[in-house]
């Protein structure tokens, strides 16, 4: 199969992966039935993993026990695990190609333990979240404003074990997009009830979460 990532992008990523501190595992879930982008997603993750010895991929079926463990209901989906093999609520549903390569790569870097700048007041508000929170960020791959929103959802998830942040590629998961009336991206759905539109500041995410 022809490579998904061209030489230029590979070189850029190799350089960026110098920032990886610890190992990160990508756990991918695919399905043999009716999964248009499973093969491409598998290809992408494999190619990315080849660019750093700190990255690896595991693959399971959508109907596996592992899928239940990470609450996976769609394919392709993948989660990131930190060096200790812990799941910190960082999930991608659909292939993070196009502009979403940006949210994918920054999630890998942050999951590896690289430090990220976050104001103390915001950090405190994130750490105070004490109930289960699910943040879905619907995106299209041609949307330049979407990775920013995905990164915020993932950042909140990484900083609080009660939170799961998921990217949802709206075209691949058409039924889910229709269910949540997605006609503009990024659209952010919190606990399947509250919604935000656009790449909002992290404070807006927190206001919604705090109102739950």
């Amino acid at each position: 199969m022809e490579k998904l990532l061209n030489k230029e992008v590979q070189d850029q990523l190799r350089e960026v992966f110098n920032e990886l501190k610890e190992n990160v595992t990508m756990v991918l879930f695919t399905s043999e039935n009716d999964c248009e982008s499973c093969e491409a997603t598998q290809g992408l993750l494999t190619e990315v993993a080849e660019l750093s010895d700190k990255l690896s991929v595991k693959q399971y079926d959508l109907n596996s026990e592992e899928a239940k463990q990470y609450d996976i209901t769609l394919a392709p989906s993948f989660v990131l695990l930190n060096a200790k093999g812990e799941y910190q609520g960082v999930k991608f549903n659909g292939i993070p190609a196009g502009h979403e390569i940006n949210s994918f790569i920054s999630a890998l870097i942050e999951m590896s333990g690289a430090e990220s700048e976050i104001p103390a007041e915001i950090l405190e508000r994130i750490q105070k979240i004490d109930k289960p929170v699910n943040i879905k960020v619907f995106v299209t791959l041609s949307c330049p404003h979407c990775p920013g929103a995905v990164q915020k959802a993932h950042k909140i998830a990484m900083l609080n074990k009660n939170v799961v942040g998921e990217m949802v590629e709206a075209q691949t998961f058409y039924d889910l997009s229709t269910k949540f009336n997605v006609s503009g991206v990024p659209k952010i759905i919190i606990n399947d009830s509250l919604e935000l539109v656009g790449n909002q500041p992290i404070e807006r995410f927190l206001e919604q979460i705090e109102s739950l």
Partner: protein
Amino acid sequence: MSLNFSFSGLNKAKVDTSILYDFVAIGGGPAAYNAALYAKRKGLKTLVVAKKPGGQLLNTSSVDNYLGFMELSGEELSEHFIKHIQSIDIKEVNDQVIENIQKVGDLFELTMENGDVLTTKTVLVATGSNPRKLGVKGEDAFANAGVAYCAICDAPLFKGKDVIIAGGGNSAVEAAIDVAKIAKHVTIVHRSQFRADQVLIDKMMIQANITIHLESQILEIYGDTKMRGIKALDKKTNEEFSIEADGIFIEIGNIPSSGLVKDLVELNTNQEIIVTHKQETSLPGLYAAGDVTNTPYKQIIVATAEGAKAALAANEYINTH
């Protein structure tokens, strides 16, 4: 579904707030980047603060009128700009918003969203513009249930559906051409005659699934849980008509993002910053360039040129103050 990977690098550059800058350009579009290029070449301590590197170019599917580049996407053009300024080590702060500008003595203090304060001798406001709203009933109610403002982002969500495009300028016609490739049918509705370039209109005319209503004023966007269609007035016959549709892209131009300096400099009634032929505003040391100014014709090349003028004028100002 196009997979075209567009990796823009990690944003981890930390801004040095301890130094006095000569020139800070606020913006992530052609005006800010070209200004930074010119300022740096003059030897000025230069910084670019961009909310979103690339700015409106990122929402432009194709650019065919920037001299020297026959055909490329807005995003590709912005990548060229950014590569150019990075090649000469211009400092950038990305994904940051300047929340306040204050002139203290001869210097400007710029407060960023994260609370950091930058100090500089001169400032360029090149903050561009945001999509203009139609201002009709239903626009806000269906804001995320059919009504959209970014064709390049949201077109994939309307695969096989009926879509309306409001507007008659270049961005509306380009949106119609792009969306027609994905949607079942596109209807373009505009209150007067087309303002778009003839080459774009010609390109649109050969698409079989586009219908055109000129001299038609949109009155209302209606629906239930989501948008179902629009009501419009045919100004020639003075008759109302309805069009059923699943979505509407509003492409009726932009409003300048001048809020940051509205109490500092003179604006015209369109909220555009009034500039001189040297891009000076009414506040010495503060310059403006690109779509945020009162310069007519919002074009990439016009913004680029204004950025150059602003930097040269700022350099002159610094040398004489």
